[in-house]
C-alpha cells in the first residue's frame, strides 16, 4: 500500500473536463463587447531598410479604427534582459520575411486583413545572410549593426580539466561533424491574445503564453505603463513546446491598440504566421572530438557548436550555453572543452523547443557513442552502462547531480525490447538502436538576476472544505494545473477535485517564472507543498487538542485528519479547518521555492546547466528500411524515463509518449527550411507532422529514483524523453543498413543517396552528414563559394538527368 493517497494514482486531470466538453476558453475563444480585430502586416523582405511606411490609405479604409507601427513602440525588448535586440514592430529595418511591421485594428477581421494591402511600405533591400558560414565571414554585411565580429551574436569558450593530457592518454580519438536541422513547435493552437484597456486605466491581456510573468515585465517596458496597472492572464495554451515563451509583436500591438482605442482588441495568428513567429529549434553544426581508452573509458571531450540563430536573440544566449552544458551529466568525462557560437541570419528567430539547446548536441554525442562502441566491439548498452556518471556526484563542469537513473533506464529498455536477441539476429534492412539522455528539472537561475523565489503559491481553505490554490504557472497542456491540485491535495489530505486552481494570472497568483525548462513540477510543486505544510500545521494543532492526540501521530488523507495509531479517531477536514480558522483567523498560507545554492560552478557561464535535479532517459528504436524506396519506417520506440517519482503515472507516460512522437517527427521528416529567405514549408500540408498513421508504437517505462529535491521525489517529465529518441533512431538506421546519419532529418531521399540508388550512379556512402564548417577550409567565405558551386553543379545535373 502506498504511503500516499493521491500521488502515484492515475487520476483524471482536474482541468480535463473543460477540454472534453468544449468549454475551456483559449485566447481566441474570448469575445468582449465592442472588441476590435487585429492583423499584422509582415515583411516581404529578408533584409531591408524601411524607407517609407505610410498608413494613411489604410487608416481611411472604412471599418479601420487604428493602426500602430514600430515608431509607436521603439523600446527594445526581448526575453533575455542582457540581449534585447527586438522591437514589438520593426523599426527602420526588417530582418526576416514575416517580421511584423505594422498592426491594424478594425471592426472585423476581414476588414483588418483588407487594410493590410493599403499600407504602403517601401523597402531598400540589403544583402541577406542565410547560412552560418556567411554569417561568420561577412564583416561587410551586418544584420545588427552593433555586432562586434561579423554577425556573431554570442561566442562562448569553456574548458575544464586537462584536455591535452586526456587526449594524449586516449587509445582512440574520434572526430565527427554533424548537423541538426532546425524544426518548429507547430502547436495546433495558433498564437492569440485579447487586450482590454479599461476606463480605470488598467490593461488586461489574455494571451496564449508560457511566461506571463516575463511578459508582464516587457509590457511595462515597451508600453511605459506601470506593471501595477497591467494584468496578464495566460489562457490555456493549445500546445506550446517552447514556442509561446517569448514576448511577441502581436501581444504589444493588441495592448497598444486597445490603449489607443479604449476598446478590446484581439489578435489571432494564422497558421502561416506561426511559422514566422517560430522561436524553434536552432539548426546547429557540431564538431565533436572524443578520446577513449581501449575499454571505452572517456578521457577527454572537445565539443564545438555553431548555431544558426535567425534574426533575433530570443533565448539564444541560454541556447548557446545549453548546447555545451549538459554533455557532462550522463557519462564520466574527466576533461571537457566547449566552444559555442551563435550567429544572426535573415530568418525567423530561433529559440527554445522541447529539449532547448540540448537536443542537438545529444544527437551528436549519442551517435558518436554508438560509433565508439562499434569500433571497440562493445554492445552499445553495455558500453554506456560501463561509463555512467555516478549519482550524487559533481561533473567536470561543476554541475551537481543527485539521483541518476540512466543505468536503470538502459537496463529497462534492454529488457523490454528483447535487445540482446534482436542485436544478433535482424536481417539487413531491419535495425535496433539505443541512446541515453538527460535534462534539467528547471533552470537553476531565473532569466533576470534577482534573489527572489522562482515560484510562489498561495493556498486558501474555505469554511466548506474547498481549497483554492493560486500560482503563476501557465497551463500549456503539460498538466501543471493538475500537478498544483494534486500536490495541494496530497499535502492537505483532500482530493484534487476539492481544489480550485487559479494559475497564470499576474494579479491573482504569486509569481512563478513560467512553464519553460521543465521547471514547474519541481519548483511550483515545492512552493505549493510549502504553503500546504504551513496550513496543515494549523489543522494539526487544532485537531491535536480536540482529539487528544499528539501532533506527531496525526496524518491526513481522504478529507480526514486522523490518528495514525487509531485511524477511526479522526476529524473531518472541514471540522479541522473550522477549528483552525476559529483559532488563527482566515486560513491562508503562502509558500515559495528557490533552488538550493551550490548546484553549479562560479565561472562565467556557470549559470546555464545547473538544476535541482537531472532527469535521465534511454530510448530504443526499432526500424525497417526499404532498400529499394529508401522509406524509413520506425516500428517501435521504447523509452524509459527517470522521473524521480510519477505524481500521476498516466500524465508522465503521456509526456514520454508525446516526447517520443515529437522526436520521431524531427528524426524523419520535420525541417524548418528556407529558399532565398522564404520559408519553404509554411503550412501543415508542407511542414509535415506525423499523423496517427505515421506514428510508431510508443512504449513508456517509468523509472522512479525518488529525488530528495523534488516534491514527493518528482523530477521533470516533459522534455528529456525527446532527447534520446532521435539518436536512437539514427543508431537503429545504422544497424539496419550500415549508414551513419550525422544529419537530420533522415529522409528517404538521403537513404537512397547513401545506398547509391538515388540517381542510379551506384555510388554508395557509409555516412550522410557535413564534413566541416563549409567544406572544412579555414576561410568560411571560400568554403561558401565552393559549396555554392557544387550545389549549382548538382542542380544542373539534376535538370539534365533523364526523367523516368
Amino acid at each position, binding site marked *: 500500500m502506498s504511503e500516499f493517497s493521491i500521488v502515484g494514482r*492515475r487520476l*483524471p*486531470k482536474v*482541468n*480535463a*473536463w*473543460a*477540454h*472534453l*466538453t*468544449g*468549454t*475551456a*476558453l*483559449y485566447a*481566441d*475563444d474570448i*469575445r468582449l463587447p465592442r472588441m476590435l480585430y487585429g492583423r499584422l502586416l509582415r515583411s516581404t523582405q529578408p533584409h531591408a531598410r524601411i524607407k517609407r511606411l505610410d498608413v494613411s490609405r489604410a487608416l481611411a479604409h472604412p471599418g479601420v479604427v487604428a493602426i500602430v507601427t514600430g515608431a509607436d513602440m521603439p523600446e527594445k525588448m526581448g526575453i533575455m534582459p542582457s540581449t534585447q535586440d527586438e522591437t514589438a514592430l520593426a523599426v527602420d529595418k526588417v530582418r526576416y520575411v514575416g517580421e511584423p511591421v505594422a498592426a491594424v485594428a478594425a471592426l472585423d477581421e*476581414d476588414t483588418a486583413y483588407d487594410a493590410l494591402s493599403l499600407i504602403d511600405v517601401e523597402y531598400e533591400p540589403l544583402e541577406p545572410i542565410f547560412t552560418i558560414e556567411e554569417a561568420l565571414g561577412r564583416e561587410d554585411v551586418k544584420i545588427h549593426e552593433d555586432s562586434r565580429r561579423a554577425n556573431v551574436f554570442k561566442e562562448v569558450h569553456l574548458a575544464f580539466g586537462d584536455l591535452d593530457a586526456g587526449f594524449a592518454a586516449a587509445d582512440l580519438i574520434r572526430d565527427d561533424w554533424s548537423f541538426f536541422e532546425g524544426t518548429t*513547435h*507547430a*502547436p*495546433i*493552437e*495558433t498564437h492569440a491574445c485579447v487586450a482590454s484597456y479599461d476606463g480605470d486605466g488598467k490593461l488586461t491581456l489574455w494571451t496564449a503564453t508560457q511566461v506571463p510573468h516575463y511578459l508582464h515585465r516587457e509590457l511595462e517596458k515597451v508600453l511605459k505603463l506601470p506593471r501595477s496597472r497591467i494584468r496578464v492572464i495566460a489562457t*490555456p*495554451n*493549445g*500546445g*506550446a*513546446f517552447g514556442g509561446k515563451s517569448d514576448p511577441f509583436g502581436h501581444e504589444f500591438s493588441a495592448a497598444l491598440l486597445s490603449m489607443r482605442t479604449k476598446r478590446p482588441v484581439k489578435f489571432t495568428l*494564422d*497558421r502561416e504566421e506561426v511559422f514566422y513567429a517560430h522561436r524553434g529549434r536552432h539548426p546547429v553544426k557540431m564538431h565533436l572530438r572524443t578520446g577513449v581508452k581501449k575499454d571505452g573509458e572517456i578521457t577527454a571531450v572537445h565539443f564545438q557548436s555553431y548555431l544558426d540563430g535567425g534574426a533575433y536573440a530570443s533565448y539564444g544566449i541560454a541556447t548557446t550555453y545549453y548546447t555545451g552544458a549538459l554533455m557532462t551529466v550522463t557519462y564520466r568525462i574527466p576533461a571537457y572543452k566547449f566552444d559555442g557560437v551563435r550567429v544572426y541570419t535573415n530568418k525567423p528567430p530561433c529559440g527554445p523547443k522541447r529539449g532547448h539547446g540540448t537536443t542537438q548536441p545529444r544527437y551528436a554525442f549519442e551517435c558518436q557513442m554508438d560509433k565508439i562502441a562499434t569500433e571497440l566491439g562493445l554492445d552499445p548498452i553495455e558500453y554506456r552502462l560501463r561509463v555512467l556518471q555516478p549519482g550524487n556526484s559533481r561533473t567536470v563542469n561543476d554541475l551537481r547531480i543527485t539521483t541518476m537513473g540512466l543505468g536503470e533506464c538502459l537496463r529497462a529498455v534492454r529488457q523490454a525490447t528483447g535487445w540482446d536477441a534482436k542485436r544478433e539476429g535482424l536481417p539487413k534492412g531491419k535495425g535496433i538502436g539505443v541512446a541515453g539522455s538527460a535534462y534539467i528539472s528547471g533552470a537553476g537561475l531565473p532569466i533576470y538576476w534577482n534573489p527572489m523565489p522562482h515560484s510562489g503559491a498561495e493556498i486558501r481553505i474555505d469554511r466548506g472544505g474547498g481549497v483554492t490554490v493560486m500560482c503563476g504557472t501557465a497551463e*500549456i*497542456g*503539460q*498538466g501543471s494545473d493538475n500537478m498544483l491540485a494534486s500536490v495541494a491535495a496530497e499535502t492537505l489530505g483532500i482530493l484534487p477535485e476539492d481544489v480550485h486552481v487559479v494559475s497564470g494570472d499576474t494579479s491573482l497568483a504569486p509569481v512563478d517564472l513560467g512553464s519553460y525548462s521543465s521547471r514547474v513540477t519541481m519548483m511550483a510543486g515545492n512552493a505549493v507543498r510549502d504553503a500546504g505544510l504551513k496550513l496543515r500545521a494549523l489543522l494539526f494543532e487544532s485537531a491535536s487538542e480536540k482529539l487528544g492526540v499528539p501532533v506527531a501521530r496525526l496524518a491526513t488523507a481522504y478529507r480526514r485528519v486522523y490518528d495514525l495509531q487509531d485511524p477511526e479517531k479522526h476529524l473531518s477536514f472541514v471540522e479541522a479547518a473550522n477549528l483552525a480558522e476559529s483559532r488563527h483567523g482566515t486560513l491562508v498560507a503562502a509558500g515559495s521555492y528557490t533552488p538550493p545554492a551550490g548546484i553549479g560552478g562560479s565561472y562565467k557561464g556557470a549559470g546555464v546547466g545547473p538544476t535541482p535535479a537531472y532527469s535521465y532517459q534511454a530510448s530504443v528504436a526499432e526500424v525497417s528500411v526499404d532498400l529499394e524506396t529508401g522509406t524509413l519506417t520506425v516500428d517501435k520506440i521504447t523509452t524509459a524515463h527517470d522521473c524521480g517519482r510519477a505524481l*500521476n503515472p*498516466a*500524465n508522465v*507516460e*503521456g509526456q514520454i*509518449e*508525446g516526447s*517520443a*512522437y*515529437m522526436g520521431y517527427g524531427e528524426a524523419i521528416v520535420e525541417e524548418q527550411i528556407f529558399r532565398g529567405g522564404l520559408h519553404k514549408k509554411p*503550412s*501543415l*500540408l508542407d511542414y509535415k*507532422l506525423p*499523423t*496517427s*498513421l505515421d*506514428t510508431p*508504437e*510508443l512504449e*513508456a517505462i517509468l523509472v522512479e529514483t525518488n529525488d530528495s529535491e523534488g516534491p514527493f521525489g518528482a523530477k521533470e517529465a516533459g522534455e528529456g524523453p525527446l532527447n534520446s529518441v532521435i539518436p536512437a533512431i539514427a543508431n537503429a538506421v545504422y544497424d539496419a543498413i550500415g549508414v551513419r546519419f550525422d544529419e537530420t532529418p533522415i529522409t528517404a531521399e538521403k537513404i537512397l543517396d547513401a545506398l547509391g540508388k538515388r540517381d542510379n550512379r551506384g555510388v554508395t556512402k557509409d555516412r550522410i552528414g557535413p564534413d566541416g564548417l563549409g567544406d572544412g577550409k579555414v576561410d568560411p567565405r571560400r568554403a561558401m563559394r565552393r559549396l555554392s558551386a557544387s550545389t549549382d553543379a548538382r542542380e544542373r545535373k539534376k535538370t539534365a538527368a533523364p526523367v523516368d
Partner: protein
Amino acid sequence: MTKSLVTLRINGESHTVAAEPHHTLLEVLREELGLTGTKHGCELGECGACTVLVDGQQMLSCLVLPQQIGMAEVTTVEGLANGPVLHPLQTAFAEEGAAQCGYCTPGMLLSAKALLDAHPHPTREQMAEAISGNLCRCTGYTSIYEAIEKAATRA
C-alpha cells in the same frame, strides 16, 4: 459585406443566424453561434481541429459553407454529451489522459464518435485510420487509442 440569414440544425436544435455568405461553417459556429468548442488550427483543411459531424459523418468545418449543409444535423463537441451524462468517449479521454492541451480534442472526439458509431469495437488500425486527419501534437496518439478502446467497452 452583407450578411444573410442561414438556418442550421446543430446538436438537435435549430438556429437561424445572420452570417457573411462566404464565411465557413467553422466561422459561423464560433463567431455567430458562440460555439467555441470547435477549434481551428489552419483553416485550410490540414489539421482536423475543426472536425464536426454532419449527419454522423466527419467533416472539416473550415472547408464547408453553411449553405452546403442545408438542414443536415451538425454535431459539435458541445452536443456530444447526452444532457448531463457525458459520452463514454469523454470519460475515457479524461481517465486515459488522452487530452493534454485539449486543443485537438473536440475534433478528435468527434472523429472517434464517428468511428465507434460505425465500428463499435474497432481495431487499432481502424482507429489510426479514423483519426488520421486529426493532428495531435501532444500525445503521440497512444493514449487516444487507449481511450477509444476503453469507451468501446463501455458504450
